[in-house]
């Protein structure tokens, strides 16, 4: 099919006759693909009759299109897990009609399973195993052989010297298939299954859970404990077992075909040995189950299944799968979520909202880009205008109430989502409901949240709009009018140093002076630091920087583009002025002084200064961690700047890494010797990395946190201030948001910074991070 598309593009319709000649078999294959993919969707006939019809069509096409059909069915097993039982039923019907085909399908699935495991596609591997286990229910696979596969999986827990995430995965894949096949396996092999579950229980008891605190959205246990995912799934399976494996939520079309299917001959799964662990293997990270609703939250209608019910697991799994399949198409995704089969028996809107926020708040990062969830929720509100907005409002209210114990990173994501969402709905919100935050200290989570939300709302609109949308009582939380603060303006004190020079520079700029001309003009600026007149006026001169930059920014204050133009035009001057580290730090200080009421402007200008290499990341780190910025340290925009800086830095490191790898390959080719001393290259990289500013950030954090801890200790005060919680979670955030790059430095981090002598509170963050990959 893709072949045909390409020829369309290049021919631009110039050879229609050629298309017609070669397209027939392709057309049939497309039709098969379409028929198979679309079965189970809305139709005038029942699902059973559609499956029956499709099985007939496919059986007839087997002689000519068998391999294509096999490939399509394997693909839907892997890519459409939300329609699992529809396709297992289809395979069951085909197997009943054609035993050999059934056998070939099982073989193809096993091959596919091996490939996915080799390619680190672990979530797809879960779907494949689940598919195989449901094929037991369809009389395609014999139960004892499935049990044998599960036994092999669970024996991974006996392997030595493996990362915990490896054995975790193999236990997970067995447990997560049991809602589908537990009943059947227990009926046929209860002794073996009991032994299996005992082994799993033993493993779960002894495994490490150091990673859990780092992944929890809320630190409090009430009202909903944030459980580690394997613990939760185990509890759900235990409850299912107690209920004698009676599970009523999963749609099982094969039940209607029982008389046909039980006549079929079954196949045995070939013995399957889990591939051995290798260093290339990247197992899924552990996660914590996000819960924000329970049966008390949905006021009318169907009751929400309990947190340890297997129904809850299945519903959440299916909703996650739908999002995974359709995240690029927000309208389709919303429609698919809202047409979830069995939706009349559950409070579907609540499940959807919970699953979406669960993904948005997932640590270290959401499965998809944040803005997707905003767009998806807007589509859902459009499709269900009478019910979904209310659930969303209820959820927002609940999260506001629990801000005190919410992880700082998650608060960031919440306020980003909320402000963007409001901007699509004329900023309508019942702010008075949140009047309780007005009586609290402004650094507390609730007023802080409201303040940051209003700041973000203002960025998407304008200052007066924000004044208009909140009640007058909220005025203390309204952001400052984002105007600049020019110190050399008309109201300036005539004795202000540099005042006259600022006018001169301003005129020069307006008269289109060149960089050299400006530098000449600036030569006359006295240096307040001039006790050591060693370099004749070319060294760091803070007054020069202030006079020039304040004036330049003032002339260019009209818009981002004006400011970017100005920085570009006078790049040379700025480079000269910031030649030293002190110069780089000072330019940031001056920038901050000038634009302190317009954090968004500070953010974009810092980005430009880094990209044009006027300042470096170390300077940004020094500035953010400096005492002058302490009062803004917990503000959202500071962390926006910091994370953006780290991202740019990491891209740079990745670039160097790539160049290093390429250079290595070149050298090896040239010299063709194994004893080539490439230790030189390693040393170079290490130097680069230790110079690297990632370490600066960690170093500064450690200093800041240690100071706080020591201060509290000596004065006998509790360390757990709001500031401390914010700061330590920001440190966690650095690890989590940039974990891909940081993994590469672990050795350096441990040797240089996170040593055993460090305060255990700070060291704990590092250890929790390490535990994520063990």
């Amino acid at each position: 099919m893709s072949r045909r598309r390409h020829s369309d593009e290049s021919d631009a319709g110039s050879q229609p006759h050629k298309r017609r000649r070669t397209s027939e078999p392709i057309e049939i294959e497309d039709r098969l693909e379409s028929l198979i993919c679309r079965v189970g969707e809305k139709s005038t006939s029942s699902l059973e009759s559609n499956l029956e019809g499709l099985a007939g069509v496919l059986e007839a096409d087997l002689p000519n299109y068998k391999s294509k059909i096999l490939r399509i069915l394997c693909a839907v097993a892997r890519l459409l897990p939300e329609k699992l039982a529809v396709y297992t039923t289809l395979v069951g019907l085909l197997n009943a009609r054609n035993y050999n085909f059934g056998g070939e399908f099982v073989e193809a699935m096993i091959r596919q399973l091996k490939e996915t495991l080799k390619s680190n596609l672990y979530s797809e591997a879960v779907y494949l195993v689940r598919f195989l286990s449901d094929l037991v229910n369809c009389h395609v696979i014999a139960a004892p052989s499935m049990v044998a596969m599960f036994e092999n999986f669970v024996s991974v827990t006996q392997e030595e010297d493996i990362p915990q995430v490896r054995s975790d995965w193999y236990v997970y894949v067995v447990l997560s298939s049991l809602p589908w096949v537990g009943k059947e396996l227990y009926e046929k092999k209860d002794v073996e299954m009991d032994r299996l579950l005992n082994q799993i229980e033993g493993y779960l008891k002894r495994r490490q859970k150091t990673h859990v605190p780092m992944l929890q959205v809320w630190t409090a246990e009430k009202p909903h404990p944030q459980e580690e995912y394997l613990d939760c799934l185990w509890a759900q399976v235990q409850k299912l077992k107690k209920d004698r494996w009676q599970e009523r939520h999963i749609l099982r079309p094969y039940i209607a075909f029982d008389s046909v299917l039980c006549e079929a001959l079954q196949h045995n799964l070939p013995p399957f040995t889990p591939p051995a662990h290798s260093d290339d293997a990247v197992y899924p990270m552990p996660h914590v189950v996000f819960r924000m609703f329970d049966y008390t939250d949905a006021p009318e209608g169907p009751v929400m299944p309990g947190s340890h019910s297997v129904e809850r697991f299945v519903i959440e799994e299916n909703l996650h799968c739908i999002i995974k399949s359709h995240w690029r198409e927000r309208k389709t995704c919303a429609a698919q979520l809202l047409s979830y089969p069995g939706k009349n028996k559950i409070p579907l809107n609540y499940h959807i909202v919970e699953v979406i926020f669960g993904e948005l708040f997932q640590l270290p990062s959401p499965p998809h880009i944040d803005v997707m969830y905003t767009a998806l929720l807007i589509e859902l509100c459009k499709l269900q205008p009478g019910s979904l907005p209310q659930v969303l409002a209820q959820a927002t209210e609940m999260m506001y109430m629990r801000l005190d114990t919410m992880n700082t990173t998650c608060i960031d994501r919440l306020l980003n989502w909320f402000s963007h969402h409001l901007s699509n709905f004329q900023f309508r919100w019942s702010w008075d409901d949140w009047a309780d935050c007005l009586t609290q200290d402004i650094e507390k989570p609730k007023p802080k949240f409201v303040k940051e939300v209003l700041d973000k709302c203002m960025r998407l609109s304008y200052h007066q709009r924000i004044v208009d949308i909140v009640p007058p009582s909220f005025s203390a939380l309204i952001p400052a009018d984002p105007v600049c603060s020019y110190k050399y303006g008309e109201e300036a004190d005539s004795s202000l140093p540099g005042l006259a020079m600022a006018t001169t520079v301003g005129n020069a700029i307006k008269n289109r002076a060149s960089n050299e001309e400006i530098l000449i003009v600036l030569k006359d600026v006295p240096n307040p630091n001039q006790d050591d007149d060693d370099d004749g006026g070319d060294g760091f001169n803070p007054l020069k920087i202030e006079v020039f930059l304040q004036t330049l920014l003032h002339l260019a204050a009209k818009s981002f583009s004006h400011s970017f133009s100005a920085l570009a035009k006078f790049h040379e001057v700025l480079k000269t002025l910031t030649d030293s580290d002190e110069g780089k730090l000072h330019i940031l200080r001056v920038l901050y002084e000038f634009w302190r009421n317009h954090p968004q402007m500070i953010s974009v200008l810092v980005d430009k200064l880094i990209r044009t290499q006027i300042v470096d990341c170390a300077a940004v780190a020094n500035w953010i961690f400096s005492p002058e910025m302490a009062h803004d340290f917990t503000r959202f925009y500071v962390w926006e700047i910091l994370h953006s800086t780290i991202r740019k830095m990491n891209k740079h490191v990745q670039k160097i890494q790539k160049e290093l790898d390429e250079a290595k390959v070149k050298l090896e080719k040239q010299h063709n010797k194994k004893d080539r001393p490439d230790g030189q290259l390693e040393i170079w990289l290490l130097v680069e990395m230790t110079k690297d500013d990632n370490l600066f950030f960690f170093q500064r954090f450690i200093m800041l946190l240690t100071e706080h801890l020591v201060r509290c200790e000596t004065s006998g005060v509790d360390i757990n201030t709001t500031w401390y919680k914010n700061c330590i979670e920001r440190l966690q955030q650095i690890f989590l948001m940039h974990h891909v790059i940081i993994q590469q430095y672990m050795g350096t981090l441990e040797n240089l910074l996170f040593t055993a002598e460090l305060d255990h509170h700070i060291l704990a963050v590092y250890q929790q991070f390490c535990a994520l990959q063990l």
Partner: protein
Amino acid sequence: MSIKLNALFSDSYMDISQYRDQDFKGNRYEQEKLLKQSCSLYVGNLSFYTTEEQVHELFSKSGDVKRIVIGLDKVKKTACGFCFVEYYTRADAEHAMRFINGTRLDDRIIRTDWDAGFKEGRQFGRGKSGGQVRDEYRQDYDPARGGYGKLDPTNVIFTTGT
């Protein structure tokens, strides 16, 4: 593993539209090729009062913005309701097409479309009165876009504009 099930997993927000820039220097094929690799977006239906800052804040949600060029009335040199947003990477621009296109900025549903790349001169409206062509013939009253359309609807015979 080789099948991607094209039938099912569409990505329709990414498709190029029917619009082709008449002033583009090159043939249709070349323009379409650029559109399919582009990191630049045209953004339309903005209010005349929407600022670069607002555009930057919104479009930064899909990735780092490299540059914004606000569309200007050719005569008045004031904003006339469109702009170009350029990203550093194609992937970031794709996310904008999927998740920002069709949502609101300044209370208006905005529309994004692939652009072949900014060239000097393209920041100006091409309507006879100086603004965008669509505002020449518009018959409704839109206070955020200068009120009524430019031409008196009772006098003029409309031809299909570009």
